[in-house]
């Protein structure tokens, strides 16, 4: 996603946090040396810092974790005891059989977990979720209010609102979007395609993208780009977040994990002006055109049972009520003790309106990739919609044949 790598000496930052804020120490003293690898955004920073309070713990935070985690945890013994995952990266670890079922450990140490946190696959608990994330609508309530525009609930309404905002000249670009070629753009397509009721697969893992829903999804994405910064194909979540903070855009579908940053007085010029709402629907009567993601922890399979037990205990300390209370606005937590603030409204409303969870699987990973790499030619006008969708299917078929998913 980002080239930027975030390595953080967690022990150090934990020391700093402990001196700065009131944080109770870990309930027990951990004697087993443990390592974890996870993504590096704020929520993970908080969790890793809480885990390190137990001692003997080294938390590696790396936004590129997904490229090294599969190999590192496939090794025997695994190089990490705790693996931070999201719903899509769990697929890789499960496929390699490098994470262990947690039912026994949950029974022993995880009685306080809410059932919602237990990721069950085929009846077995494979991961403990800690937060959900989704892209949803964020908008400048002051601008929409002055122009007398209701917060849009559909993409058609969002485009109308954008036209009015553009005419008023209140911001540089009415809409912002995470349209960076690659993963970000792929995610936009998947959200929109599902929003139009599209199905990804037919018989035997064959891709079925070249259809009416596909064309509508592409056309809607292109219509949005008319109101965006012309450099949208390089714009990732951080860029959109900054555009908001600097008052350059008025609306965007952005990750819930970025919502807190809008009111960060150190960075934002628009404190209190950005409001959250459910992701707009793509078609009348449809569900919000977004997908629900979760992040959570797994325990490696290739480590001795006693280490796994220690790792699970430490992980539970990282995901406890105290951590959530101290970092309430860093994420939409699933952990007890969380009080949903205004920043969580978008994700909550999207979920309440029936937004589907992201359909993670081996085959779907490939759809995501081919969408991310093929859409740019359509958006810049080099290809028409039908050709683009046909090319996506063809690229998918090549990749799937090479990977053995299609015979």
């Amino acid at each position, binding site marked *: 996603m980002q080239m930027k790598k975030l390595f953080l000496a967690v022990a150090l930052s934990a020391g700093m946090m402990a001196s700065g804020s009131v944080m109770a120490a870990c309930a027990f003293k951990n004697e087993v040396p443990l390592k974890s690898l996870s993504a590096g955004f704020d929520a993970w920073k908080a969790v890793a810092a809480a885990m390190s309070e137990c001692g003997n713990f080294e938390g590696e935070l790396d936004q590129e974790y997904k490229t090294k985690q*599969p190999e590192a945890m496939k090794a025997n013994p695994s190089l990490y005891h705790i693996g931070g995952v999201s719903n*899509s*990266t769990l697929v890789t670890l499960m*496929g390699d059989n490098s994470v262990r079922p947690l039912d026994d450990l949950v029974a022993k140490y995880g009685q306080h977990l809410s059932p919602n946190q237990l990721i069950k696959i085929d009846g077995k608990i494979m991961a403990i979720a800690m937060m*959900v994330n989704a892209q949803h609508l964020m908008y400048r309530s002051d601008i929409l209010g002055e122009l007398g525009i209701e917060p849009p609930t559909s993409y058609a309404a969002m485009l109308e609102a954008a036209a009015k905002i553009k005419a008023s000249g209140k911001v540089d670009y009415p809409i912002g979007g995470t349209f960076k070629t690659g993963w970000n753009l792929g995610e936009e397509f998947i959200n929109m395609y599902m929003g139009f009721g599209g199905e990804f697969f037919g018989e035997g893992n064959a891709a079925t993208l070249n259809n009416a829903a596909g064309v509508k999804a592409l056309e809607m994405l292109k219509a949005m780009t008319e109101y965006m910064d012309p450099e949208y194909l390089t714009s990732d979540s951080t860029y959109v977040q900054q555009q908001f903070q600097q008052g350059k855009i008025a609306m965007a579908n952005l990750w819930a994990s970025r919502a807190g940053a809008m009111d960060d007085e150190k960075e934002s010029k628009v404190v209190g002006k950005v409001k959250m709402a459910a992701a707009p629907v793509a078609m009348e009567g449809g569900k919000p055109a977004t997908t629900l993601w979760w992040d959570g922890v797994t325990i490696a399979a290739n480590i001795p049972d006693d280490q796994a037990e220690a790792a699970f205990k430490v992980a539970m300390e990282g995901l406890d009520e105290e951590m959530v209370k101290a970092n309430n606005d860093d994420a939409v937590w*699933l952990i007890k003790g969380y009080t949903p603030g205004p920043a969580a409204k978008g994700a*909550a409303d999207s*979920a309440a309106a029936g937004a589907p969870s992201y359909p993670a699987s081996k085959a779907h990973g490939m759809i995501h990739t081919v969408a991310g790499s093929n859409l740019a030619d359509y958006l810049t006008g080099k290809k028409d919609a039908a050709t683009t969708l046909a090319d996506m299917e063809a690229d998918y078929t090549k990749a799937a044949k090479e990977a053995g998913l299609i015979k």
Partner: protein
Amino acid sequence: MKFKTFVAFVGPSILMMLLFIAAPLVSVFIQSFHHTQPVYETVTREVCTPGFIKQICQEETSSQPVLGADGKPLVETHYVGLQSYRDLLDMDRVWQAIDVGRWSEILTIDFWKALRFTLTFTLLTLPLVLLVGLALAVAINNALKSIRGPIIFITLLPFIITPVIGALSIRWLFIGDGIMTAMLEQWLQQDIAMFAQAWTIELLMYFYRVWHVAPFAFVIFYAGLQTLNQDTLESAIVDGASRWERVRYVLVPHLMPLIIFVALIHLMDCYRVFEEIVGFSSQAHVISLQWLTYDFLTPDDAGNRSIARASASAMLTMIGIVLLLIPLLRRTWRDHKRGGH
């Protein structure tokens, strides 16, 4: 030299070359003809993921890797001939595009798009690097002795900067409302988006590469100029040769072996252009062959990567470099046989 002594000296480096150059090459070559894949089975199972208040449990049918007795996924490898090369080159579509006369469609296929950029990039920057390098060398060679040291130092700076960092710095100067873009906008009184279309990004890339590599050419040429026979130069002056004629008939022939050396190195380096793509995040508009290989090797969220196509693309990149170098190598070989040096 005795044969034994010769072997003792050369042996270690030959061993290293076999181990670290030949062996990986052979391995990549073999992989480009094979598909290595897990064995999949179709499984229907219940998957429970967090909702906002209540958990969502769904029946899902998906392909799952089959595990072997040792708990690891079963993997099989089979020979597929030229399939990966066919997938990469997509010749069917190329012929189709030629048939209907829409040449630009060829450039929407990744490989050809990458090849187009890689070649233009290599061939356009080559003369620029040579010219700028030569001009710098001649200019500094004529500068006052007392200030040469500091000038050489400053001229070399761009070459010292790590390529990715250099590319990123230029990107930050121009992206969005970067300092340079803001200045240009004020000067030209219009909205400028350098990263919104291919040609502006390419322009920045050419500029960056010449800025980065010209000091290398300069330092080589400058060293060469120090060995220039002053008598020849002076007799040329006595003969009434103008400044330009001196460069044309004395300097350039003297530096020719070095010019060929710099050209060789530059062609090899440029054909592997990669930092610029990453640094300028230009994937949407411009990609290179090396980046294509990297992209095939990068795992997606679900851990898939295309090793076979990456190997094929790496082999094709190598073949491309060899083809590009042949004219220069032939020239060096001819000079060598004539016993010039």
